[in-house]
């Protein structure tokens, strides 16, 4: 069976600075993978490379076995690759419902229509409300996004990604910036994700990682330091060295 997402020998540098170095990563269908690493390890850069925000200097990205390295960001999204952003990227001046309808409209190609009224397609609105209900956002459907507390906005961010009906979902610190009293709402959603979707999550909270991930990839200075099952990772000497701040540089160098 072909992997849902496969990254082969990905490299990217900004000038002389190597931010992604020879990264290989495979997500099988239904994978639950956490991507961890210290600040500045290149985690978000890797997501940007996978989604096409950045072009790699070398290497390939395969989605369901198809090479998408040259595809545009929008093309990748239409092929079933969805992401959430570390910092919310929402239509702040529109209602939550419109945020969802827009996503569904673009997914199904309704937005090519210049003549029909946007409200004349009840199926889209119905589906949008379904998505909102499943994340308990239905009560906020008609509120402007910018009027919602940040934690609720984070849920909208996830609702949009799910409304894309993705086969691969990349979550960039879904609970970042959310008070801990509310973060469990978001983590519950992450727990209940469709088991068919392959999920890659960037997360700093080790409890969350432990609860969610079946596999962990550790990224240090742009390169994969080690990957494997959570227990193996947690007891790995090199990982401990990186996280306890004892000369992570040498740990990375040994692996590279």
């Amino acid at each position, binding site marked *: 069976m072909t992997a849902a997402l496969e990254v082969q020998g990905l490299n990217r540098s900004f000038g002389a600075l190597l931010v992604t170095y020879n990264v290989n990563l495979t997500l099988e269908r239904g994978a639950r993978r956490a991507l961890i690493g210290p600040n500045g390890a290149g985690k978000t850069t890797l997501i940007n490379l996978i*989604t096409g*925000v950045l072009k790699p200097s070398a290497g390939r990205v395969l989605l369901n076995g198809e090479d998408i390295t040259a595809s*545009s*960001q*929008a*093309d*990748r*999204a*239409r092929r079933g690759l*969805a*992401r959430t*952003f570390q910092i919310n*990227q*929402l*239509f*702040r*001046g*529109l*209602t939550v*419902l*419109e945020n969802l*309808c*827009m*996503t569904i*409209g*673009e*997914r199904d190609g*309704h*937005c*090519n*229509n*210049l*003549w*029909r*009224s*946007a*409200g*004349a*397609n*009840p199926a889209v*609105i*119905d589906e949008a*409300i379904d998505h909102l*209900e499943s994340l308990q956002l*239905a*009560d906020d*459907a*008609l509120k402007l996004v910018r009027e919602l507390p940040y934690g609720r906005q984070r849920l909208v961010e996830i609702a*949009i990604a799910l409304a*894309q009906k993705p086969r691969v979902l990349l979550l960039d610190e879904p609970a970042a910036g959310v008070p801990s009293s509310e973060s469990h709402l978001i983590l519950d959603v992450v727990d209940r994700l469709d088991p068919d979707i392959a999920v890659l999550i960037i997360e700093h909270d080790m409890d969350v990682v432990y609860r969610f991930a079946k596999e962990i990839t550790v990224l240090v200075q742009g390169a994969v330091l080690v990957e494997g099952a959570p227990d193996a990772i947690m007891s790995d000497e090199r990982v401990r060295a990186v996280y306890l701040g004892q000369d992570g540089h040498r740990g990375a160098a040994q692996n590279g």
Partner: protein
Amino acid sequence: MAVSDSKAAERVLDVSADRRQARDRAAGYLLRRHHFQWPEALPWIVAIAAFFLFPDRMTFGSQVLVMIMFALSLDLILGYAGIVTLGHAAFFGIGAYTVGLGAARLGWTEPVSGLFAAAIVSAFVGFITGWFLLRYRGLTLLMLTLATAIMLQETGNLRSDFSGGYDGLPGLEFKPLLGLFDYDLYGHTYYLYALAVLAVVFFFVRRIVYSPFGQALTGIRENVKRMHAIGSPVHRRLVTVYSIAAGIAGIAGALFTQTNAYVTLTVFDFDNSAKVMVMLILGGTGRLYGAFLGAAVYMVLEDHLSKLSPTFWQFGIGLLLVLAVLFARRGVLGLFEDAGQYLKRFRS
């Protein structure tokens, strides 16, 4: 057991009825949003009333209608899609010259088909320039659109033997409208003609704004990063709306030539691009009727102030713009909306 069972079932039904209601309420908002509301009739009533109240000012009235249409086309790209341009006069000018040159050089003097030709030619130029320019945003785009308008103007100047240059193409004559209504000295015919064309164009723009495509434009304005991430072909959407707006600006330019019976290269002026943007911002962007209000307020004020003081009238316009930017960020229309909200709260 049976009792509690039925009670539980009732509760479930209640919940689903609640949910049903919540859904309907949420959906209703989107379903009804595009319906016509009675205040929307107001500008048209005013326009028709003006026809009877100021029969000797119809030439000026036609100019106002032309500028409303021009501002409306800018609203589509600036107000909805968030494309900042200082070269929108380019398309107004192309429309104006399509009709002008058609009449002067080819003897194409039928007015309605002239409008169609102007729309097609302007939209085509919009498509070509938009394809290249709309990869850029912000200041870069501002400069490139400005440069495009100047280049077109200079091209006309270079071939002044053909275009008439800054002396223009004077004394153009057009055939009677639909072969029935002739041009009259007071401009009555052309006022009603311009009003009818504006109504058709407005209906078209309104459809676009409330369509899923129009929604996607709003999305691009609100957050282009997110649009890319949900798979929107952003460049294609922008080029499409830019071409449409160019076509409408072209129709406005064509009407300008037809109502004035002359045209000069000043239609391409930076002044013209800036003026239409000031009108739109004054009226309020991204809300369709801002174009009506802004263009009308600006033109009427310009008319009165220039009679009051032929040398310093622009001071008044400048002052108005400063006041609008300071106290009415969403334009004059925004003030009316706020007043409406206030009244509603006051009543309840």
